[in-house]
């Protein structure tokens, strides 16, 4: 079985399992709406301030949501002992990790489809004029986030206190992604919106480095 085919099967399995209950998505959607609302009480921004802190708000919300959402990705295999079935499957570890990564990318993108309009309305920051470029930055940032997050989810799933451990591993490693993602988004919310190429290349560099690392190291995640 080719890697692409195996990854597609794992992806399909993840999505099908989620769509049966939709519990991960509905819980996370409520979570991001709460966080976006809480920011208003914490900072009470006017329109100009909202533009300034908005990019940070979006990305911090996404990081927190991901550090909670990605946990079940491998933890559920541990709870149901399906990890043994995955290990026995005629697929490489990379195919399994890739399938899960793509499923997580889809789930987090769905969260963003809710988060961005809610943010735009509540804080009066227009996103429609820069939508295409915003989607590009969101995609690049989310991709890096789920690549590292899925690998770390496999690590934390086999540890104690895993719900607490995943944010601890994921959030500090995300610092070199957070800075370019926030700054690139801020460039789009400025008075004359522009896509900063330096930050865009930093995002791409992050994605390439960590995708390669997860490809090289994924064999160690699933072994007995």
């Amino acid at each position: 079985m080719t890697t692409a085919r195996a990854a597609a099967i794992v992806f399909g399995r993840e999505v099908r399992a989620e769509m049966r209950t939709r519990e991960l998505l509905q819980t996370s959607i409520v979570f991001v709406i709460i966080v976006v609302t809480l920011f208003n009480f914490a900072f009470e921004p006017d329109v100009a301030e909202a533009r300034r802190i908005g990019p940070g708000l979006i990305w911090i919300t996404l990081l927190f949501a991901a550090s909670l959402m990605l946990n079940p990705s491998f933890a559920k295999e541990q709870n149901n002992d399906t990890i043994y079935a995955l290990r026995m499957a005629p697929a490489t570890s990379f195919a399994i990790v890739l399938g899960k990564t793509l499923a997580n990318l889809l789930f987090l993108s769905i969260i963003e489809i809710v988060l961005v309009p809610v943010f735009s309305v509540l804080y009066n920051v227009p996103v429609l004029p820069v939508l295409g470029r915003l989607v590009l930055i969101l995609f690049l940032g989310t991709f890096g986030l789920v690549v590292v997050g899925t690998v770390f989810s496999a690590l934390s799933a086999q540890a104690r206190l895993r719900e607490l451990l995943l944010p601890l591993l994921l959030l500090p490693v995300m610092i070199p992604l957070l800075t370019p993602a926030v700054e690139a988004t801020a460039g789009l919310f400025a008075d004359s919106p522009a896509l900063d190429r330096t930050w865009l290349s930093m995002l791409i560099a992050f994605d390439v480095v960590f995708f390669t690392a997860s490809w090289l190291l994924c064999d160690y995640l699933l072994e007995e």
Partner: protein
Amino acid sequence: MKRYGIFALILTVLMFFAGYAALFIAPDEATMHAIQRIFYFHASSGWAAMEASMIVFFANVAYLAKRDLKWDWLAISAVEVSVAFWTVMLVTGPIWAHPVWGVWWTWDWRLTLTLVIWILYLCYMVLRTLIADPERRAVFSAVFGIFVFLGVPLDYLSIRIWRTQHPQPVIFGGQNSGLDPTMAKVFFYCSGVMTLLMILLVVKRYRLERLRHDAEELRLAVEEASESAGMSRNL
């Protein structure tokens, strides 16, 4: 055992001399005066911390390649020692910064990067406490350690770019631009002594980790033997 003692004794003498050199041999700095002398220990701890961090990375890669627990013991020893030196850096930094810059802390790229690395190694240590099985702990912490190490150049780049685009905070302009020859000698001497201290600590810590491992093996062996003998004695 005796070798460690002799090494430690020599190091103590060298360290005393480093203190003497920093306080009395190095010339007085024109604007900062006495407080500048903390630099000999602050920056040399930074060197030792960086060297220990390099050991961590090589030990992590070597463990995944060779699967010998010795490399794991070396990794955790170097992590703990590097955290100790990063902490010395983070504590002596503000002591120097407060009188000179007027603030305890500023989000300058060097300070930010040091803080980020320090946090990442703390997470590495936390991860290890939460996995009981020695083999799995070794594999997972090696994988995490490699991710951390790959992130550092990206951290460096992003913080560097970020800090040059933003307005600079109140910062003392180009301190290290030209180092007095005597100052340089004292500094390199202190860095050398600090590196030796780092090596001594890593070696000692490695020994401790090995003894811990041996003790654990013995305990398991005794437990197994008593179980097979049908004894219900609780150890």
